[in-house]
């Protein structure tokens, strides 16, 4: 006896519906054999973004929904460029060319065709549809600047085509049959605003014009309307509607009306044969937008996989106009029910809500589309609306944080807020692009991307996004680059560039990679100054006029008459324009010429304060128990000791610390990256505090008995941050992103051995620290501190000063 192998699923049609169905099926069943029959020459692509082929000169391959490998990885067999010619409903077999194959189930996803109205002259050259890439290719050929284009049809697609042509410099006129644009979605006042907005982007609109002829010899030269009027043009784009492609279904004997009729399980009139997308008709409705298609595919996939779940009860249609500069969305139906309107015609704002039987049934938002996701969610869930005006105004104030998890953020790909938030949390995503790649939210028309970014920001506490790619040109994250450094044993930024291509295009990622290379190599990397920001090439902070500032280290904010005298002498001798007490308890010499830096350092005889670098900056202290009547411990000595221990170490972003002698906290330790506060019977260690661009109270990492323990924990955390944070991520962003528990486990769990290993790596890195200001005697290049026509003010000759860091001046 022959072993009957599973025959699997045939999907006919290679559009967005087919792709969504396959993805939905694969969520339930990773093994079911699936064969995809694509009538077009490409694997599924994003039809919603078709206009990019006209406007941005994109190629179909740029619009592909998934790369080739995806189909291989997901075991999808596919055929492209050939049409299925027959389906047999009794054997569930599919005929392609000569071959007929049997399946367990078949799903029709044959979509629709652009409607071709029976107008005289419709077959002339220069008349184009707007449905396939080849249509766009032909349109682009005609769309020269100054060419006159007539777009017939003032619906969503017609207006989108008009905008694309206007952007290419064509003279565009939209010809619409009805008395207002988008009459199915908009009422008169909203349509009036839309008309004005289209004028703004240089698109003319003629309403109530019934085109009866496309004039011309071979090539179209103009339109003639029913009233006898004419419009001259060089080419015509037709966008008057769609009609479901049902020929295959009809021949197979399935019930077909406007579309292939399906029940609530998305099954056609024949068992085991399903239909989804624009070819399907459910409850009398054929949907022509993608969001309902995704709902349908979820249901069809469950039916096919034999899994129980909700059946399909229809979708609330919602549409967004993808025309830049014209903000317009519509939800459901505003033609019936009780309606309320808020409008400000001057500002181009019009917002309307329709309520039927106390439930939200429709909305139109024009000019100000805030709250769209919230209203759509209410319409979908049939939420009760007691005070419609209040609902409307509240919606406009809704932030991403307030949206319910069920709210659909991406309409194109049917992705809800909950899915996005889960993805960010569970997979630790930090960038919009990553979220787009994982959830597909924003991969369609892209209008929801800003909302996705907002969600990333909320979930990561503001640390997301800019960090997403360390090298945006090559789309490499910090982790990608760190991996390639480890893999290739790269010791310098140039070696990294060789192995992954980063740094070459814009160079913006060089400082970040320089940090990674040094950190991964425990500070024993090959230093390349060209990869450093100017501050780190000359060890001073560049000012608006190209001069530099000099901030010597003043450990714990404690100085001496001798140091002050030297600072004063240097300021006099080099005519330093400004001497200022900083907010970090030290002194800044501002407005120093580059070539004077080496001599000033030499004469100061103090180590660098690293005020210009992503490095350990200050450890501020309060007077503490030595003088203060409330002091519980020696905050000054502790601060000075810590500053010696940590100085010279580079970090992902600057690190500022403080030590307060009691909970009155005069050193502001609770808002520092690392803050120590003496408390009754011990020390509190806080991390992730901030009082700069963001204000955040530091989390209590631990409270310990002794100063030694507090310092040890602090150092362990410093190294943990050095190794784990993204470049340019302050501790406040880092701690919030990874969570305090994660940090505690890594830093406090001594039994795991990890804290000791962190401290060991800290010691290795610290051993390699040299005061950068010693380069005054030993420049890395003869012209390190000079221009081609200047010479550095020579540092007084003498033997190189021993590392001041060790000896110190405190």
């Amino acid at each position: 006896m022959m072993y009957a192998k599973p025959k699997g699923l045939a999907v006919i049609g290679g559009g967005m519906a087919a792709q969504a169905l396959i993805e939905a099926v694969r969520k339930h069943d990773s093994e079911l054999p699936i064969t995809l029959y694509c009538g077009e020459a490409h694997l599924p692509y994003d039809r919603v973004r078709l206009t990019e082929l006209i406007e941005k000169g994109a190629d179909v391959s740029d619009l592909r929904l998934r790369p080739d490998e995806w189909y291989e990885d997901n075991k999808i067999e596919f055929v492209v460029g050939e049409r299925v010619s027959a389906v047999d409903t009794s054997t569930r077999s599919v005929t392609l060319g000569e071959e007929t194959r049997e399946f367990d189930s078949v799903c029709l996803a044959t979509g629709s065709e652009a409607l071709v109205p029976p107008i005289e002259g419709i077959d002339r050259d220069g008349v184009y549809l707007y449905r396939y890439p080849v249509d766009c290719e032909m349109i682009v050929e005609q769309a020269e600047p100054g060419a006159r284009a007539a777009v017939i049809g003032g619906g969503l697609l017609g207006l989108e085509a008009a905008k694309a042509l206007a952007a290419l410099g064509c003279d565009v006129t939209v010809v619409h049959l009805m008395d207002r644009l988008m009459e199915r979605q908009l009422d008169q006042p909203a349509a009036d605003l839309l008309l004005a907005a289209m004028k703004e982007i240089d698109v003319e609109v003629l309403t109530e014009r019934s085109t009866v002829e496309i004039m011309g010899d071979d090539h179209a030269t103009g339109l003639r309307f029913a009233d006898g009027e004419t419009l001259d043009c060089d080419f015509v784009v037709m966008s008057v509607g769609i009609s479901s492609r049902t020929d295959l279904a009809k021949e197979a004997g399935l019930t077909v009306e406007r579309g292939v009729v399906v029940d609530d399980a998305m099954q056609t009139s024949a068992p085991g044969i399903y239909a989804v997308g624009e070819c399907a008709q459910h409850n009398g409705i054929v949907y022509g937008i993608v969001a309902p298609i995704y709902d349908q595919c979820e249901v069809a996939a469950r039916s096919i996989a034999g899994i129980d779940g909700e059946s399909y009860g229809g979708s609330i249609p919602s549409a967004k106009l993808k025309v830049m500069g014209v903000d317009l969305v519509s939800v459901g139906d505003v033609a019936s029910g009780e309606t309320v309107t808020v409008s400000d015609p001057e500002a181009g704002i019009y917002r309307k809500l329709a309520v039927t039987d106390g439930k939200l049934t429709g909305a139109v938002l024009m000019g100000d589309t805030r709250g769209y996701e919230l209203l759509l969610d209410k319409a979908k869930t049939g939420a009760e609306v007691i005070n419609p005006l209040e609902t409307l105004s509240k919606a406009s104030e809704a932030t991403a944080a307030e949206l319910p998890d069920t709210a659909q953020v991406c309409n194109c790909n049917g992705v809800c807020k909950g899915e996005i938030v889960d993805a960010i949390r569970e997979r630790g995503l930090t960038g919009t692009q990553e979220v787009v790649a994982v959830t597909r939210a924003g991969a369609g028309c892209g209008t929801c991307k800003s909302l996705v970014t907002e969600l990333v920001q909320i979930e990561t506490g503001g640390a997301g996004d800019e960090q997403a790619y360390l090298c945006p040109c090559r789309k490499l994250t910090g982790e990608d680059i760190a991996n390639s450094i480890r893999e290739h044993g790269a010791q310098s930024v140039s070696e990294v560039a060789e192995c992954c291509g980063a740094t070459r295009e814009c160079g913006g990622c060089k400082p970040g990679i320089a940090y990674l290379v040094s950190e991964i190599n425990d500070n024993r990397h090959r230093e390349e100054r060209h990869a450093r920001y100017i501050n780190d090439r000359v060890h001073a902070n560049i000012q608006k006029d190209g001069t530099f500032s000099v901030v010597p280290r003043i450990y714990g904010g404690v100085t001496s008459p001798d140091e002050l005298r030297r600072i004063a002498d240097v300021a006099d001798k080099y005519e330093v324009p400004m001497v200022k007490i900083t907010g970090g308890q030290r002194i800044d010499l501002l407005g120093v010429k580059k070539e004077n830096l080496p001599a000033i350092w030499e004469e100061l005889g103090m180590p660098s304060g690293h005020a210009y670098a992503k490095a350990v900056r200050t450890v501020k202290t309060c007077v503490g128990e030595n003088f203060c009547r409330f002091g519980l411990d020696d905050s000054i000595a502790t601060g000075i000791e810590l500053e010696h221990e940590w100085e010279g170490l580079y970090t992902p972003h600057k690190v500022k610390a403080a030590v307060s002698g009691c909970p009155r906290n005069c050193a502001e330790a609770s808002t520092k990256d690392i803050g120590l506060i003496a408390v009754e019977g011990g020390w509190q260690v806080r991390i992730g505090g901030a009082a700069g661009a963001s204000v955040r109270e530091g989390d209590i990492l631990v409270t310990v008995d002794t100063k030694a323990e507090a310092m040890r924990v602090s150092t362990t955390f410093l190294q943990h941050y050095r190794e784990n944070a993204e470049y340019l991520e302050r501790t406040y962003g880092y701690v919030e992103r990874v969570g305090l528990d994660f940090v505690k486990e890594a830093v406090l769990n001594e039994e795991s051995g990890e804290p000791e290993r962190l401290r060991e790596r800290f010691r290795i890195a610290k051993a390699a620290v040299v005061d950068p200001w010693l380069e005054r005697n030993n420049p890395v290049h003869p012209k390190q501190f000079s221009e081609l026509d200047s010479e550095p003010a020579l540092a007084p000759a003498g033997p190189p000063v021993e590392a001041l860091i060790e000896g110190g001046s405190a």
Partner: protein
Amino acid sequence: MKPPEAAVGTESLPQGAIALCLEADVPFGEGRSVAMVDRRIGVFNTAAGFFAIDNDCPHQGGPLSDGILADACVTCPLHGWRIDLRDGTVKDQSETVRTYPLEVRDGTVWLLQVEAE
């Protein structure tokens, strides 16, 4: 400034060529500036060769020679405007920066022409 000595191979250089600096004066991957007639010129030693452009950033006059270089562009150290060293175009801005033809010969960098404003 005193131009460096140029001993060899000057015959075929155009009239008025000026020796700017020695190749070795500009570290690889960095820029340095020099006063020239009525302006400062930034000289850049990149993976794509030597380039010279006006040193003042069109934004707020930042010293471009202190910027970070990629293969053929420099990013201003003050606010990050990015200038293409080959043609002086500025990314996302309409301004351009003047570029100057250069030639490197036997270790000397020659500026082929500078017109006064």
